[in-house]
C-alpha cells in the first residue's frame, strides 16, 4: 500500500508549465487513442441518460444515442412511485440512511483511530491486528447470525440493523485510513497540548479532529456513496415499501413494470444515481486521490 502512497498531484505543476507548448504528434496520437477509449467507456452512461428522454418504443431496435422524439413521460412514470409509495419517500429514506451513516462512520472511526494511533495502552497492537484482519473478512460469514440477532430484537424492518455497525466503527477501512493519516501528523502537537494541560479528550477534539479533516472528508464521501448504492443490506432488512431505499425500490419497480418499459426503469435508475454523480463532480479530486493513496475500492 505504501508503495502507492505518493502525491498524484505532484505532476500538476510540471504539466502546467507545458501548456504553452505546441501540440506534438505524440500528443495528438495520445488524445485520439484515449478519446476512443473514453467514448467506449462512457457510451453506456450517455446511452442511459439520453434513452430516458426517448419513448420506450424507440429505446430498443437501435444503438442511437440521440432521441428522435424528446419526451419526459419516463420521468413522470418514475416519479410516480410504486404501489402507492412516492418516489420521494424512497429518496428520503436513502438520504436519511446515508447521512446518518456518514455521521456514524466518521465519528466512530475517528475515535477508534485516535486510540490506535495516539494512545499507548496494553493490547493496542493486538487490537490493531484484529482490526486489520476484519478488513479481509468476507461479510457473508456474519450476516446470518446478525440477521438472527436483529430478528430476535424485533429490529428487522427498521433502519437500526443498517446503521448500528456504522456507529460502531465496523467499517475497518475508514479506521485504517484515519490511523494512517494520524500517524503522519507530528507528535509534537500532542506533547504541546499535554504540557498545556489538555487530556486525551481535549487533544482529540481540539487538535486531532481539525487536522484530520481531509481523511474525514474522504471517509464521508465514500460512506455516503457506498450507503447510497448499497443493495444487500436494505434487501435483507427492509420489508415494508415505505422504508425502501432507492436501490431496492428500483428493483421492485423493475419487477413490477412491464418488461417493455425500459424508459421508466432507466429514468428511475438515473434519478437514483443523481446524488452520486453530483458527489463525483464536486469531490472527484478527493475520490480519485483517495483511491490513489489508500487503495479504496470504487
Amino acid at each position: 500500500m505504501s508503495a502507492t502512497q505518493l502525491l498524484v498531484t505532484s505532476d500538476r505543476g510540471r504539466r502546467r508549465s507545458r501548456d504553452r507548448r505546441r501540440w506534438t504528434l505524440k500528443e495528438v496520437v495520445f488524445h485520439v487513442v484515449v478519446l476512443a477509449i473514453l467514448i467506449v467507456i462512457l457510451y453506456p452512461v450517455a446511452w442511459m441518460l439520453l434513452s430516458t428522454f426517448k419513448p420506450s418504443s424507440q429505446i430498443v431496435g437501435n444503438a442511437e444515442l440521440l432521441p428522435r422524439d424528446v419526451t419526459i413521460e419516463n420521468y413522470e412514470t418514475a416519479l410516480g412511485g410504486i404501489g402507492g409509495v412516492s418516489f420521494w419517500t424512497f429518496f428520503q429514506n436513502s438520504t436519511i440512511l446515508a447521512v446518518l451513516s456518514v455521521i456514524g462512520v466518521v465519528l466512530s472511526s475517528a475515535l477508534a483511530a485516535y486510540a490506535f494511533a495516539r494512545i499507548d495502552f496494553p493490547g493496542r497492537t493486538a487490537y490493531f491486528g484484529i482490526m486489520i484482519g476484519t478488513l479481509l473478512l468476507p461479510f457473508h460469514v456474519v450476516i446470518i447470525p446478525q440477521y438472527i440477532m436483529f430478528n430476535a430484537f424485533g429490529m428487522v424492518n427498521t433502519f437500526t440493523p443498517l446503521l448500528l455497525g456504522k456507529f460502531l466503527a465496523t467499517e475497518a477501512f475508514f479506521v485504517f485510513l484515519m490511523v494512517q493519516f494520524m500517524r503522519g501528523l507530528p507528535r509534537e502537537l500532542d506533547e504541546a497540548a499535554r504540557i498545556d494541560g489538555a487530556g486525551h479528550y481535549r487533544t482529540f477534539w481540539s487538535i486531532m479532529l481539525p487536522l484530520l479533516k481531509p481523511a474525514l472528508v474522504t471517509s464521508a464521501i465514500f460512506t455516503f456513496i457506498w450507503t447510497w448504492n448499497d443493495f444487500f443490506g436494505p434487501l435483507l432488512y427492509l420489508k415494508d415499501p415505505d422504508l425502501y431505499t432507492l436501490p431496492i425500490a428500483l428493483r421492485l419497480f423493475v419487477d413490477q413494470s412491464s418488461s417493455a418499459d425500459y424508459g421508466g426503469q432507466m429514468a428511475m435508475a438515473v434519478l437514483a444515481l443523481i446524488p452520486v454523480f453530483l458527489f463525483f463532480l464536486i469531490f472527484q479530486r478527493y475520490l480519485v486521490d483517495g483511491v490513489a493513496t489508500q487503495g479504496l475500492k470504487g
Partner: protein
Amino acid sequence: MTVDTLAPPAPPEQLTPPPAPRRPRRRWEDIRAGYVFLAPWLVGFLLLTAGPMVASLYLAFTDYNLFSPPQWVGFDNFVRLWSDPDYLQAWKVTAVYVLVGTPLKLAAALGVALILNAAFRGSGFYRSAFYLPSLVGASVSIAVVWKAMFIDDGPVDSIQQFFGFPAGGWVGDPDKTMPMLILLAVWQFGAPMVIFLAGLKQVPHELYEAASVDGAGPIRKFAAITIPMLSPVIFFNLLLETINAFQVFASAFIISGGTGGPARSTLFYTLYLYFRGFRDFQMGYASAMAWILVLVIAFITVIFFRSSRLWVHYAGDEGR
C-alpha cells in the same frame, strides 16, 4: 490493507517519556482513555463480528430455519454441499468470473494506466472520467442499464447485427450472461487504474534512461523495469480485486431478475448463499457455505502472500 506492509506502531518508549513521578497516573489515564476511545469499535467487533463468527461456525453444524431451535447434525451440511448440483454450479460460475474477469479487468487497468502515464494535457480529466464507472458500477442502476443494453434488439444486439453477427440479446442466453457480467467488471477498471498510475509515477526515470543508453527497446524496458517496479502495486490490485470479485451480488441479482438464471448461468456463490439462507431459511446450510467461502478466501490470501516473495519486488523498502 495488507497486513505485512503496515509499519508497526512506533514503540512508545522512544517518544519523550513523561516525567518519572507522574508516570503511574499517566499510564492509568492512558489505559482508561484508550478503552474509552476504542469502546465503539470494541463493542462493534464483539457484537457484530466476533460473536456472529462464532455463532455461524456453530450454525454450520446444525439445521436451523429461524423458527425452531437449531438441531445438531455434525458434518452433514458440508457433506450435502458436495453433492448439491446447484452448489457446484455456484462455484463454477464464481470461479469463471474471478479467474477470467479479474485478470481482464487488471489488464485493462494497466494498459490504460500506461497510456495515461504519458501525462499530456488533460490526463487528470481522463483519469477522473475513467474512474467514474468504478464508482457507480456495482449499483442497481447500472445493472438495470446493463441489462437494457443487452436485451433482444438492444443497442449491443443492434451493433452485432450491423457487423453481421447472429441476432439475439445476451440477457436470455446462458452462454452469454457470463461474458456480459465480465464486461461489466472490466468496465469498472478505473479504480485499479488509478492505483497503477500512482505506482507508475514512482518508477524512477533514471532507470529508463539508463536502459535506453544500454540499447533496450520499449518491450524490454516494460518487462525489465516497469513490471518489477510495479509488482507491489500489481500484487495489491490482484489481491483486492480477487477478493472483491468473490463478493459480487447486486449486478448478478438484478440482471437475472433475482433468479441466478437463465439456466443457473449467473448463480454466483453469494446469490446461492442468499437464496439458501434468506429465501429457503436453511440457515445452517448457508452458514456452512459462508465458512467455506471464508476458508477459500483466507487460503487464497495466504497463497498470494507466500508467492509474493517470489515475484514481488520491494526496491530497498524505500517506499515504506
